[in-house]
């Protein structure tokens, strides 16, 4: 047994490929836990960042700077009464949030956080991810249908139309990225997520900058389509608060509602991870070609540690700026503890073996975090599209451009 466990450690591959069930389960648990924590962090971050966009403070009471607010929310949602409307289809109503949640979590199976840090590496990774992530529309439709109410029904119909239309443009953009992977000596491309990042490494360019501006346009289409795919502002029609009260989850409350939210944020992180993998070089560090050599390697490998130290410093400044009133004693202590943990993590990240192993994951997460911030930024800035305009943008603007980019990429790939 122990041998079985240790045998994987020497292998330079993902547990899925190695066929090692134990480590696969460990990876799954780590990814599941990590994503859940990321969702919680994102929840806090969104409320704070959105509040600061809107000249508010956001949560300030539960924990220092509202750090414990997501936990308080979770407790509240878990203890709320679980209401299923009488007229609803109970079974479908019950299963709909689970479908959304499962669909958004399953995508993580193929997402590579590093050359070996993935649950598995399917050779049809991209297809798998497109297929599974589009399953969530099923949950949305089921939720709207099962609620047996007008607003959810309209919301879910909007959602299904929207997700299906944007998936096509999204798929076209993805195909153009896949075409780029075949620009090597053997001329064979790959659908494997790890393979795509390795292709970027071999070609020494992020696909974002490949055939400029083709790669960039494809990326932009994906970036727009993924916002629509996850039902976020400015494409949040299915849950348009001002029109449809809450869209497809109007009738949901408590735990079931929180599952929808969890699914939504998980899907946001998932599609951002895909965008990062396909166009932004996945786990590759910035400037791998120009800033080479052991010195730069060292500098970049130290960055994760410094980032955490910087975060710790920010938290520590927060400690200093806390009101000195005894009422804030516990909060100040909590924030100091948080700063200490961040600092400790930063110091741990300086230790050479950890440093080398964690670096890939750090760059990957950092790139995804940029997308998460963009999501919040969109939400603070844009009004909401109308349903027909959304369709128009999807079919008449994004899809033709995506096809054009695809054709041009193919031509350039043959010519060059």
């Amino acid at each position: 047994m122990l041998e079985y466990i240790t045998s994987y450690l020497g292998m330079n591959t993902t547990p899925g490929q190695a066929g090692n069930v134990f480590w696969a389960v460990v990876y799954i648990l780590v990814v599941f836990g990590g994503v859940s924590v990321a969702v919680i962090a994102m929840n806090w971050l969104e409320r704070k960042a959105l509040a600061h966009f809107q000249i508010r403070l956001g949560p300030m009471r539960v924990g220092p700077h509202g750090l414990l607010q997501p936990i308080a929310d979770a407790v509240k949602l878990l203890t709320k009464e679980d209401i299923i409307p009488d007229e609803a289809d109970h079974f479908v109503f019950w299963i709909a949030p689970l479908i959304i949640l499962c669909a958004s979590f399953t995508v993580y199976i193929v997402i590579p956080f590093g050359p070996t840090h993935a649950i598995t590496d399917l050779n049809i990774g991209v297809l798998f991810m497109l297929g599974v992530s589009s399953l969530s529309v099923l949950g949305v439709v089921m939720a709207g249908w099962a609620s047996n109410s007008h607003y959810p029904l309209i919301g879910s119909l909007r959602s299904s139309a929207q997700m299906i239309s944007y998936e096509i443009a999204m798929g076209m953009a993805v195909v153009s990225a896949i075409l780029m992977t075949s620009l090597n000596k053997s001329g064979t491309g790959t659908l494997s997520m790890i393979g795509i990042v390795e292709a970027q490494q071999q070609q020494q360019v992020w696909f974002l900058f490949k055939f400029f501006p083709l790669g960039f346009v494809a990326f932009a289409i994906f970036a727009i389509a993924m916002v629509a795919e996850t039902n976020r502002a400015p494409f949040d029609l299915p849950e348009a608060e001002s029109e449809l009260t809450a869209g497809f989850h109007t009738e949901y409350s408590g735990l079931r509602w929180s599952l929808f939210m969890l699914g939504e944020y998980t899907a946001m992180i998932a599609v951002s991870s895909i965008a990062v993998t396909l166009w932004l070089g996945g786990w590759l560090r910035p400037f791998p070609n120009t800033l080479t050599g052991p010195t730069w390697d060292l500098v970049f490998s130290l960055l994760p540690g410094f980032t955490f130290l910087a975060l710790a410093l920010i938290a520590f400044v927060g400690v200093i700026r806390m009101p000195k009133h005894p009422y804030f004693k516990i909060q100040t202590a909590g924030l100091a503890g948080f700063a200490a943990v961040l600092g400790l993590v930063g110091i741990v990240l300086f230790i050479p073996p950890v440093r080398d192993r964690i670096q890939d994951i750090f760059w990957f997460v950092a790139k995804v975090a940029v997308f998460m911030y963009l999501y919040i930024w969109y939400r603070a800035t844009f009004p909401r599209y109308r349903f027909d305009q959304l369709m128009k943008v999807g079919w008449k603007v994004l899809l033709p451009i995506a096809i054009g980019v695809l054709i041009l990429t193919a031509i350039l790939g043959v010519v060059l």
Partner: protein
Amino acid sequence: MTDPTTYLSHLELGEPDKTFLDSNELIINMGPQHPATHGVLRVILKLDGEKVLGTECVIGYLHRGVEKIAENRTYTMFNPYVDRMDYVAAVSNGLGYCEAVEKLLNIQAPPRANYIRVILTELNRMASHQLWLGTHALDIGAMTPLFYTFRDREEILKIFEKYCGARLTTHAFRIGGCQYETYEGFERDVKKFLDFVPPRIDEYEELLTTNRIWLERTRNVGKISAADCKALGVTGPVLRASGVKWDIRKAQPYAAYPEFQFEIPTGANGDTYDRYMVRMQEMRQSLRIIRQAVEGIPEGPIMAKVPKVMKPPVGEVYHSIEAPKGELGYFVVSDGSTQPYRVRVRPPSFVNLQALDVMVRGQLVADVIAVIGTLDIVLGEVDR
């Protein structure tokens, strides 16, 4: 109340079509508890998919019988009640009522009182438009302008609070003038506000005016022609956005308005975007009026000679002013006693709301929200 179809007599609900699938029209009840109907408006929508085939407004959820109350109060006692109608523009309401009764009593408010009235009313117009902008943008999905406008509206409410002690239902004016002299530093506060707010208006415009999504959501949405406006009695920015240059401040001047220079912004298409632009320009025009008023405010008494017990001569009077939302008219009938025989209010929101059906027919559900927002209704005033 149980069967929503009882309200739908004029929506011509056809026989259900059971021949192919179940492709009937959908009847949706929007409100009275809905995040975007601006209070307790209930709209029954007949939909074909997302397309609106017809609407029916159900009002009265906020009916408080203000007009009836007037018949049991003296002229002075009724004054605070009018603030509760359009509670986001309480000062305008008070001005209209006070001037109507003054007309009935045949007295004139002194010039200084008129200037104070103009300053406060125009400040209130700003506040009302800011609230409209914030909620309208929120309805269309832009969250952030709401907080910006509320931040700046706060400065106006602070001035009101310093002037008369109340922020919202101000009861700022009395019949015959104003009760309170301006507080010390009033002019400084107002001037500070005048300097502070234009960049903020630019900020709102930066977020919305050229925003592609905002343009798509508002251009050619909720169009109404000038002829339809006139037929329905629509007034205010909605009428002006359709190209009719009608502003009671210019057409039938009251208070101190004849003494000020300002323009009447108008639109051309009568769509939601034009109404947005008209209101944005109106804010700037209001600032212009306030600046002139603050700089030229005369010294003198603030109260005309008003009898302690008001007994207007037998007669009737109609007086209307340009409230932020349109023509606000008071029809006051006196039977010679201390209490009005009848007070009839012509609220702009109530009349403008009639245009909803014309504006949204054939458009989408999302446009209903945009149009309700752009009509700028206050249910307190619709239901009275």
